[in-house]
């Protein structure tokens, strides 16, 4: 069947290599391969390892479809040189590995930081935080916070997490806050 067929399509040494480099198990890698090939048009499926799937196709995956951070996720994990956020199979595995159950909390918080850093400048400043809040409150106009509420919220967050009081949250402050949360590891998870 289809499942048995895909097992023979990944060469054994490559499978072993992927298992070592990522946090995924053999079953998870095979399933990821199957789902990735389904996103490719039929002609390209033979050369799945060198193909790149455009962002619009990746976003049709049910796991990412409803996620407010879908564009950021594609951007962070994509190694595309043209900047079109397309993903190769290895990028895809990378993403699944970070979001898997066995990934460590450090790795997860590092990537979460990169996902939340909308302007890619290495820190979470006010603008990043505002965009983050807007992502979380949904797309409707009534559900957005008023500017007074937004001000208050950002002020409270910086009060709590900005230890060195420079007005931005850097990686170590972020990891410090997030590592203490009991829910982070269980919510920052995507399973195919």
């Amino acid at each position, binding site marked *: 069947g289809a499942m048995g067929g895909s097992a023979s399509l990944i060469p054994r040494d490559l499978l072993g290599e992927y298992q070592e480099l990522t946090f995924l198990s053999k079953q998870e890698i095979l399933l990821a391969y199957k789902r990735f090939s389904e996103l490719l048009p039929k002609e390209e499926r033979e050369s799945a390892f060198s193909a790149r799937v455009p962002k619009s196709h990746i976003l049709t995956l049910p796991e990412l479809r409803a996620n407010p951070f879908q564009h950021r996720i594609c951007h962070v994990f994509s190694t595309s040189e043209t900047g079109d956020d397309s993903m190769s199979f290895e990028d895809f595995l990378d993403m699944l590995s970070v979001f898997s159950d066995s990934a460590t909390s450090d790795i997860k918080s590092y990537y979460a930081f990169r996902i939340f850093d909308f302007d890619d400048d290495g820190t979470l400043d006010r603008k990043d935080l505002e965009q983050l809040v807007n992502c979380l409150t949904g797309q409707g106009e009534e559900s957005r916070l008023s500017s007074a509420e937004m001000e208050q*919220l950002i002020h409270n967050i910086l009060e709590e997490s900005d230890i060195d009081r420079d007005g931005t949250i850097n990686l170590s402050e972020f990891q410090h806050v997030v590592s203490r*949360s009991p829910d982070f590891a269980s*919510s920052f998870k995507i399973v195919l």
Partner: protein
Amino acid sequence: QALMGKPYGSLPRKTVPRAEEATAMNFATLWDFSGFAQYSVLFYGYYNNQRTIGWLKFRMPLSYFLVGVGSIGYSFMIVTRTMAKNANDDGGGDDTSFNFSWKMFTSWDYLIGNPETADNKFASITTSFKEAIVEEQESRKEENIHLTRFLRVLANFLALCTLAGSGYLIFFVVRRSQQFALEGLENYGWWERNEVNTVMSLLGMFCPTLFDVISSLENYHPRIALRWQLGRIFALFLGNLYTFIIALMDEINLKARYLLPFTLEEEKIVKYNMTIWEASLYNGTIPENSTAPPIHVDPADVPRGPCWETMVGQEFVRLTVSDMMTTYITILIGDFLRAVFVRFFNYCWCWDLEYGFPSYSEFDISGNVLGLIFNQGMIWMGSFYAPCLPAINVFRLHTSMYLQCWAVMCCNVPQERVFKASRSNNFYMAMLLFILFLSTLPAVYTIVSIPPSFDCGPFSGKTRMYEVISETLEHDFPSWFGKVFGYASNPGLILPFILLMVLSLYYLNATSKSYKEANLELKKKLQSVRIKN
């Protein structure tokens, strides 16, 4: 015992007495856990008091005792270990210091794939942000302190009255059931037979709602109100359980005190009859002063002595079963029928049923966790007297899990305000530990102070249950072991040991406090260093 001991029917204590045999297999009797079920492995009374049984020379009474005590000890260890691990993960228990940041960074659930669920999540996150902002501003506002205080005192008073009332009701009902038992249960209908269990279950259903109403007087922040609510429900269940136990113990003591002179006589008669019966089994000589020829008496006909341990075990098993029934019926009526009503009658009703009064029932996380904890407390209390009670409970948990799974999927809506159980993780574990401690008190008390029944159970014939340990030490271990044990259990040695433990507790507590303070100091230093630069 089931594997290696003598089978059913071979010994008097394992057989249904002749008088009860007629009704032994009736469903009503079985449901009540008397009749055939009473004389089975389920209850304490079945177990024989022979020192070793079978060809493996398995020491049954010793193992019964050790398993009972050991399972309690193991439970203590597991609960404490989990609490310590939780405290460790918490990183020192900073419960509310990263409130807003956590809401920002960790509230989105990446496993959500369904757009409708995502919309719900967006709405709940928005509400949560807005509430948190408002609540933070309100905490700086001044209120009418006196009115609030008065209302809170009033609410606490009402809650105490409810608790006292329910305790009294249970006591009254247990007493009544003893009277019924004395007069013979055949004269009364279903209600009188099951009065105690039904009353306890009904109290468990209605009093929490009452507490909910009372708490609206108090005007607390929802998280604090939830804690008060849980604490009150906790006190309710505990009070009910303890009143029940005390009433039972009272009855046993009463019987022991008033019937003791008669029981001793009865004991002698029964023992005499039993020696005849045993002698007849082996065709040996009959003790002097008897002229009866050896007759083979069927075990069912041998007169039996009273057995309070089995009675206690029966009460617990009945309680568990009725609790299970109440849960199922509540789910079916309270959740399913309500959902059906709201869904289908909405078209022809004056107001919108789905948003208005009945609507769909919420899945009450904290209530369910509390129910699980109390169920476990009952099992801990009763398992010494009814050894197969944990097995019954496992079956009950399996079935109720599937039932509740289905009910949640089909008829429940999520709670409006979800105070995650994960944050108060140690709160629930602390309650579990407390309940474990309180549940094992009655069993330990009976092991140490009450003489076991002379005619049933693995400890019959001894003056105290724990004597099985000293007996084992005498017979099976070398003599120096017994001497060492004797020295070690000397109070003069134990008291200083306890003192040492208390002192080390104090020391560890002091060091942990100093570490916390050092942590805070370092944080402040970080801030001041940055400000300087």
